[in-house]
């Protein structure tokens, strides 16, 4: 029995939250909804870990939906790259839920709590689906599932701040444009190749380098996903959405949504489109590379001048996305593995920081920096979490941030890009400025004496500290993450994903 359940795990990681969402609505009770969501996330998480353990040696798993064999049927295909992203998404989800239960009390009207859990589960479903599927059109479908529920989740912040509505609307328009571009691109490559299965696409597309349809398809897909990733000039939706969303959602989005989009970009650039294509290398060198460098500096500079702490972290996210893009644009296995490591590490760090900020907002009711003067003494645990998270953003040794920057530097130096490595170090110096700004407010400013603010409740502190401890743990024992990321990068770069896969569940009919 157990083995037959496990053999369906590629679909179950998506299916369980998909069932949990409507079940939450059906019960219509927020306590039941909460436990249903927790249960679904927990099972998804365990199954993702199981999948990661199966693929960490480089095997590829395939699951045939509906009993139809690919390329006709939809296929779920797991390799080290997407198994790692699955684990990231599910672990963040399982930490966000207990956190959200407390934090949404003050942010969302009680009658909307069930809806919150339902939307959260749908968002989770979408992200897991985008990650695991091996069908290009399925990516679009799940992308819309996650995006539509994200718009609602961001808009739920309107209870506290009406600006959440315009932020959600911005995100809706830009996100829809991104998704539309993506689907136009898919349509174009479908027209040129006649297939939507990623493996099949990769095989048929190799001979079509000079096909203009394929080229424009590539452009549409990269720009469309670029909006979702928030590549530097396309990042306009991100600060608003992260700032005005409920705290738990800011943390969840910061840690997962852009990461999944980056994974899709990697998947399409390195697997669907052949790495041998000249135009692709040009895109990476002449577009991604400069944009990544600009993002690292411009977004960091913008972050320095923010007084809204959530906004500050949002801009810092744009800068960190720059590091991941830089890794991708180096076009080497080390570069890709740097991007993968940073994907994991940044999810831990940013998730923890947004959790900690949420805990402060829960107590003082404002995300503004001046209101946080002297909180270091009143909320010692939360402030300590912010300090460690901040150190990880800078890249101090002993935290995950150091590991990612180290691998990235190694990748840059491997190519003899001295100036690039200098840029990485310099932009880290800017992040010292904005992290110091926070620390100064928390510890060095005199506290406002009139209010009795106490430490955040445990249900907010525990998820925060789990992530913080995780970011220290993986900062010290970097072997595991680096090894998995290297396997993932090799799978992406050398096209292991395309090799014959081990079939899970039943084999489909051709």
């Amino acid at each position, binding site marked *: 029995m157990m083995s037959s359940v496990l053999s*369906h795990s590629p*679909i179950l990681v998506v*299916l369980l939250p*998909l*069932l949990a*969402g*409507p*079940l*939450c*609505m*059906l019960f*219509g009770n927020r306590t039941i909804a909460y436990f249903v969501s927790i249960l679904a996330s927990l099972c998804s998480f365990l199954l993702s870990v199981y999948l990661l353990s199966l693929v960490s040696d480089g095997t590829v798993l395939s*699951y*045939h*939906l*509906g*009993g139809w064999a690919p390329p006709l049927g939809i296929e779920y295909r797991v390799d080290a790259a997407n198994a790692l992203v699955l684990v990231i998404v599910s672990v963040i989800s399982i930490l966000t839920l207990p956190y959200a239960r407390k934090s949404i009390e003050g942010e969302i009207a009680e009658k909307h709590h069930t809806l919150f859990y*339902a939307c959260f589960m749908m968002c989770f479903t979408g992200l897991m689906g985008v990650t695991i599927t091996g069908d290009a059109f399925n990516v679009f479908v799940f992308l819309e599932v996650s995006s539509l529920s994200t718009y609602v989740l961001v808009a739920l912040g309107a209870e506290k701040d009406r600006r959440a509505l315009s932020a959600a609307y911005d995100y809706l328009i830009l996100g829809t444009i991104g998704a539309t571009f993506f689907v136009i691109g898919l349509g174009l490559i479908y027209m040129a190749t006649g297939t939507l299965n990623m493996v099949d696409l990769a095989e048929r597309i190799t001979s079509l380098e000079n096909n203009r349809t394929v080229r424009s398809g590539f452009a549409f897909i990269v720009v469309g996903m670029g909006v979702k990733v928030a590549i530097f000039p396309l990042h306009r939706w991100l600060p608003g959405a992260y700032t005005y969303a409920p705290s738990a959602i800011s943390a969840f989005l910061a840690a997962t949504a852009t990461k999944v989009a980056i994974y899709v970009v990697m998947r399409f650039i390195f697997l669907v489109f052949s790495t041998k294509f000249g135009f692709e290398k040009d895109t990476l060198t002449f577009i991604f590379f400069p944009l990544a460098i600009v993002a690292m500096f411009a977004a960091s500079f913008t972050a320095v001048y923010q007084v809204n702490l959530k906004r500050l972290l949002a801009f810092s996210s744009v800068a960190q996305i720059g590091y991941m893009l830089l890794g991708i644009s180096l076009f080497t296995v080390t570069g890709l593995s740097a991007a993968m490591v940073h994907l994991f590490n940044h999810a831990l760090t940013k998730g923890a920081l947004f959790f900690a900020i949420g805990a402060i907002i829960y107590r003082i009711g404002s995300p503004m920096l001046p209101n946080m003067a002297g909180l270091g003494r009143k909320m010692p645990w939360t402030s300590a979490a912010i300090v460690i998270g901040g150190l990880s953003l800078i890249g101090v040794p002993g935290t995950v941030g150091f590991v990612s920057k180290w691998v990235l530097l190694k990748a840059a130096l491997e190519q003899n890009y001295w100036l690039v490595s200098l840029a990485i170090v310099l932009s880290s110096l800017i992040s010292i400025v904005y992290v110091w700004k926070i620390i100064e407010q928390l510890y060095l400013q005199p506290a406002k004496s009139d209010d009795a603010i106490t430490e955040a409740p445990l249900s907010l502190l525990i998820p925060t500290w789990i992530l913080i401890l995780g970011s220290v743990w993986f900062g010290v024992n970097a072997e595991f993450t680096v090894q998995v990321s290297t396997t993932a990068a090799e799978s992406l770069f050398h096209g292991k994903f395309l090799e014959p896969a081990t079939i899970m*569940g*039943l084999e*489909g009919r051709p």
Partner: protein
Amino acid sequence: MDHHLILRVVTKLLVAPILLYGLYVQFHGDFGPGGGFQAGVIFAVGFILYGIVFGLRRLRKSFPDYFVHRLVALGVLIYAGTGVVNMLLGGNFLDYNVLAEEGYKGQHWGIIAVELGVGVTVFGVMMAIYYSFAGRPPRLDDKDW
């Protein structure tokens, strides 16, 4: 719209055929043109027409909001549940072949079940959209126009 006698009579005549047509599109969708999506919309149109002519309040009384919201969820569950039943019967997710002795009959049953799920959800969503737009208090009172 109490004074619009013609509208009221025509609506009463039309609602039943519209609903019947919706059901036809729903259950004929596996062989002919149609399917859950179109059927859900047509079915909802019958109710929305009733709501427009006889008043939102009366419609809401017979189809309360919480019921509509649960329908939306129920449809998704029917769809996903079909897939789960396939898995329990020993197939892959959404492998309808295991539903009956012969594969093609299983496909037939599976499609009908899945389309029913789509129909229920689309019906619920259409009603929910109508409620949320029509239920908004008007900025101007009718007399102020």
